[in-house]
């Protein structure tokens, strides 16, 4: 090719020399134009090459760059399709408990408002809840921005839009929505207009919720079960009305994992209007309130005495007459006036017996035992409202004895049920959590052993006896082997106790041969009525509520009922329990 070009160039240069005329070409000089031609040829080639290179480069740039952009956009698209500020909260079955929905907020830019007077009239026409003077003031003020109303409903948004007022504009915002309303208000809490968690789980895990929202499909899976929560809520509401109680609390917890399936405190309030709720409604009785929970503490006293080998199941204590210690006298509420063995102390809820047992264990060991159960410090629970137990400053003998039957120490109901779960689950410490285990948001591992398996088995038997024969008879739920302990305590007041202001508690677990769930029911100042023959003790109000709750939630939670075995079946070695306390031979429903 170069040969061809050279020849044509040479011809051209010959023609040029002919045209100019004043220089005649000689054979000797013929080499010079040839050189020139070569240089020009090279330059032209280089220019062409450069052009092609630019074109090629541009081609590459276009294809690579544009495809990069769209890929990036697709990735963004899949990542946060809906870029919400807070992640959804769902229950253990995936039911939505809290979510962010897009909403519109109305603001005014006064510099663009034509007639503030007319505008205020029109706005009031469609948003009657607002103050006309305030709108007029905002619309006529200096400045660029003032909120008129946050979170309009779609109808309000449409109505204001239809007015077509210049200067009144919308800002797209997000609004926290709780489809279940007040049902979960004491567990989830609520968050404010700026999507900041202000109470409950929303406040305690505020940052986690915001981080989760940034990850694709991120949602917080809680351990809660909305069905169980509803049953607990409904039964407690009914009980509050029936016994004219001031308040109530209910908790359901998985005794093995510590997962909280339901947690309610009544009265409650709407998460949309926390400002108008009374203090009584805002107060979380289940996790923030600390109470002297009375006889339910006898379970801890008995477990501790059995664990330290201070007593065995057949040991007996003198409960013939009230016990005088220092200036105090300890009475029994259900006096038997005789010597009682350990199971009878539980069945008849003997204060005297429990106090003597606690004295035999001693202050040091009692304190250590309660500490290992987690009763002496606030729980690491995922709520903003966690109560700190009140314990005696000087742990004297009298304190040891009163704590033996649940006075002189105040804990939250959540403390009580966690400790109780530890006693019946085989002796492994239960730490309550609101989050579903094994979903990556909680690092709960196997807890430490607090009591021996044998002690736990004995406690199961004792708890079952309380329901079969003792103060907790009304807590029975046919087939589900409920076991537990009643507690009736007078409320502490300045300088003593209030006689007629009671805190009644029933803490129980089921099925007692192989416990899976623990349930707590607490009523704040219940009153006796005709049906209870005027009695206001826990056995008359808290216990039956618990029985009703268990008989409804047990089938839902897949607990197989065990009905009394037929006569021909003589394989049972524990006739009192019907089944063995170690859960051997139990059939679980498989759904």
């Amino acid at each position, binding site marked *: *090719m170069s040969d*061809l*070009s050279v020849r*044509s160039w040479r011809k051209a240069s010959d023609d040029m020399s002919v045209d100019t005329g004043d220089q005649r070409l000689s054979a000797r000089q013929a080499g010079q134009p040839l050189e020139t031609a070569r240089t020009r040829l090279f330059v032209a080639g280089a220019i062409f090459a450069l*052009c*092609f290179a630019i*074109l090629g480069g*541009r*081609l590459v740039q*276009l*294809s690579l760059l*544009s495809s990069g952009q*769209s890929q990036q*956009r*697709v990735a963004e*698209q899949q990542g946060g*399709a*809906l870029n919400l500020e807070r992640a959804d909260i769902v229950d253990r079955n995936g*039911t*939505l*408990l809290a*979510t962010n*929905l*897009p909403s519109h907020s109305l603001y005014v830019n006064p510099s663009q408002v034509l007639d503030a007077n007319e505008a205020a009239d029109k706005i009031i026409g469609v948003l009657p809840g607002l103050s006309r003077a305030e709108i007029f003031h905002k619309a006529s003020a200096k400045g660029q921005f003032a909120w008129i109303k946050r979170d309009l409903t779609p109808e309000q948004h449409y109505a204001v839009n239809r007015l077509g007022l210049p200067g009144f504009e919308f800002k797209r915002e997000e609004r926290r*929505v709780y*489809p*279940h*309303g007040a*049902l979960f208000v004491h567990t989830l809490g609520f968050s404010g207009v700026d999507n900041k968690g202000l109470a409950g789980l929303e406040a305690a895990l505020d940052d986690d919720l915001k981080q989760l929202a940034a990850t694709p499909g991120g949602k917080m899976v809680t351990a809660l079960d*909305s*069905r169980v*929560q*509803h*049953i607990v809520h*409904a039964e407690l509401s009914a009980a509050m009305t029936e016994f004219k109680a001031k308040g109530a609390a209910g908790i359901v917890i998985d005794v093995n994992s510590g997962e909280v399936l339901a947690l309610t405190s009544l009265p409650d309030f709407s998460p949309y209007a926390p400002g108008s709720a009374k203090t009584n409604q805002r107060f979380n009785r289940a996790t923030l309130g600390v109470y002297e929970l009375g006889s339910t503490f006898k379970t801890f006293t008995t477990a501790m005495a059995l664990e330290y080998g201070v007593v065995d199941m057949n040991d007996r204590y003198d409960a013939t007459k009230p016990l005088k210690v220092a200036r105090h006298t300890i009475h029994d509420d259900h006096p038997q006036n005789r010597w009682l063995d350990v199971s009878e102390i539980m069945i008849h809820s003997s204060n005297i017996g429990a106090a003597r047992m606690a004295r035999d264990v001693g202050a040091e060991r009692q304190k250590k035992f309660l500490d290992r159960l987690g009763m002496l410090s606030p729980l690491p629970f995922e709520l903003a409202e966690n109560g700190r137990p009140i314990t005696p400053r000087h742990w004297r003998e009298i304190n040891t004895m009163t704590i033996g039957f649940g006075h002189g120490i105040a804990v939250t109901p959540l403390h009580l049920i966690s400790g109780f779960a530890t006693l019946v689950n085989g002796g492994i410490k239960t730490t309550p959590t609101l989050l579903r285990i094994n979903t990556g948001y909680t690092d709960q591992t196997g807890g430490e052993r607090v009591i021996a398996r044998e002690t736990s088995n004995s406690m199961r038997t004792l708890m079952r006896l309380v329901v079969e024969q003792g103060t907790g008879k009304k807590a029975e739920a*046919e*087939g*589900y082997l409920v076991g537990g302990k009643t507690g009736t305590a007078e409320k502490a007041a300045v300088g003593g106790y209030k006689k007629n202001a009671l805190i009644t508690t029933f803490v129980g677990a089921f099925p007692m041969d192989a416990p899976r769930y623990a349930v707590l029911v607490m009523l704040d100042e219940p009153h006796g009525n005709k049906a209870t023959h005027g009695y206001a003790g826990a056995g008359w109000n808290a216990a039956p509520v618990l029985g009703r709750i268990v*008989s*409804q939630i047990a*089938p839902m939670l897949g607990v*197989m*009922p065990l*009905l009394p075995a*037929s006569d021909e079946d003589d394989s049972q070695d524990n006739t009192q329990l019907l089944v063995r306390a170690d859960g051997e031979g139990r*059939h679980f*429903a498989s759904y």
Partner: protein
Amino acid sequence: MNRPALILWIGLPAIVTIALLLVSYQVKGLESELAELERAALTQQEKIHVLNAEWSFLNRPERLARLAKRYLNLAPVAPKQLITFSYEPLTKDLVAQGFAVQNIVMQYLAPHSLITDGLKQ
């Protein structure tokens, strides 16, 4: 100059340029289509999100309990209604009579025609 070579060197860039132009327009078209689809997807996702919230609102246990009480003749499951296949008093007799497992279930559920009808289908 060699004619075929000239045609080649003028034609090639021309073809490339035209092809590039066409592809570039095509890409632009596709991109706007993508953007439109993305917008549509976002709108749909938003709608689904709102519907999820609505679904949860309509499935409030309190509401379902109220509706069930009003329209359905159902009650919470009683312990007596739950048995396992190892429940001997049931199976012993029936197996002895030569019933297959499904027949045992049918036999036991016979009084509850609503359930057996469902199982037959």
